């Protein structure tokens, strides 16, 4: 960890202390955010996993029915029957804010109505195949929404964790170290000053004693 290069004076010390307080407050806030994100994230995972496995099962069953319909009607007939229908604007997208992560919410409008194909030329199983696809479709969209939310939360958790770690293991220790260095430098300077003053005082006192002795000798000689 590189050391912060700072001038060892009181001004710098005050600045660094202020920065450290801010960093500590930010660290606490981010840590709380991370905890809350985690709670939200873990709560969603179980539900999404369950939804995915049930949707996959339903979808496989629907594919099975489509395959039977194809076998009965023939590829060309089936393709023709399924070529009806226009792409619709199916989903209304809104946003929800979870710990400042903007998560999309999808509400499904009415699905297209299958059934514009010739009932005479297609097998009955096609109706049930499309019926089961129509049942699974809203759940598929729900799954997409939940998985997206999980992905976005995961990204935010990763970012927040990095910030928390950077503050906890880099910035705050660096600032603490710099503050300690400056305090020690200042204390050392203070001690140096004190010692110098004591030394000067001793020298002055010694000079005064010498002066007094000299003066006393002079006075003695004069009286003789």
């Amino acid at each position, binding site marked *: 960890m590189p050391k912060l290069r700072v001038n060892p004076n009181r001004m710098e010390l005050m600045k660094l202390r202020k920065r450290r307080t801010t960093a500590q407050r930010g660290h606490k806030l981010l840590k709380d955010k991370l905890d809350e994100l985690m709670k939200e994230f873990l709560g969603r995972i179980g539900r999404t996993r369950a939804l995915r496995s049930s949707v*996959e099962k339903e*979808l496989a069953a629907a*594919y099975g029915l489509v395959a039977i319909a194809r076998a009965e009607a023939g590829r060309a007939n089936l393709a023709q029957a399924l070529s*009806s229908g226009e792409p619709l604007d199916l989903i209304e997208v809104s946003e929800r804010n979870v710990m400042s992560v903007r998560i999309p919410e999808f509400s499904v409008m009415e699905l*297209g109505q299958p*059934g514009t194909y010739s009932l005479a030329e297609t097998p009955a199983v096609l109706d049930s195949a499309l019926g089961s696809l129509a049942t699974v479709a809203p759940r598929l969209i729900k799954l997409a929404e939940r*998985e997206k939310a999980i992905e976005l*939360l995961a*990204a935010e958790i990763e970012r927040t964790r990095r910030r928390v770690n950077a503050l906890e293991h880099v910035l705050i220790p660096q600032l603490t170290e710099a503050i300690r260095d400056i305090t020690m430098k200042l204390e050392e300077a203070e001690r140096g000053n004190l010692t110098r003053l004591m030394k000067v005082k001793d020298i002055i006192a010694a000079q005064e004693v010498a002066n007094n002795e000299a003066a006393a000798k002079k006075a003695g000689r004069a009286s003789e």
Partner: protein
Amino acid sequence: MDEMLRVAVVGDGTSVAGFRPLGFEVFPVREPVDARELWSTLTDGSYAVVMVTEPVWAEIADLAAEVIDNAIPAVTVIPGAGSPGGVGQEKLDHAIERALGTTSFIREEGE
């Protein structure tokens, strides 16, 4: 941001055909790799959900990673007709790993 958007389904003809009558926009591709050319259309903001079959996902995973942090489109893997499944779960695990650093803890909980 309330707006009406579409749902796209990309995959082999057999898997996607059934979605068309429901109002989904289907993009049948002959080879999974052809989906790469469609990608810019799919991410132009007119699709809220892009469903891709597992073989297609294998080809476009790197492109999808670029839009993973955007709110839309939500890219979802669906098992195609005849593919084994499980890729979607893997994708979910990947997100969990990104957040927690591991998936083992969640797995134990789920089982």
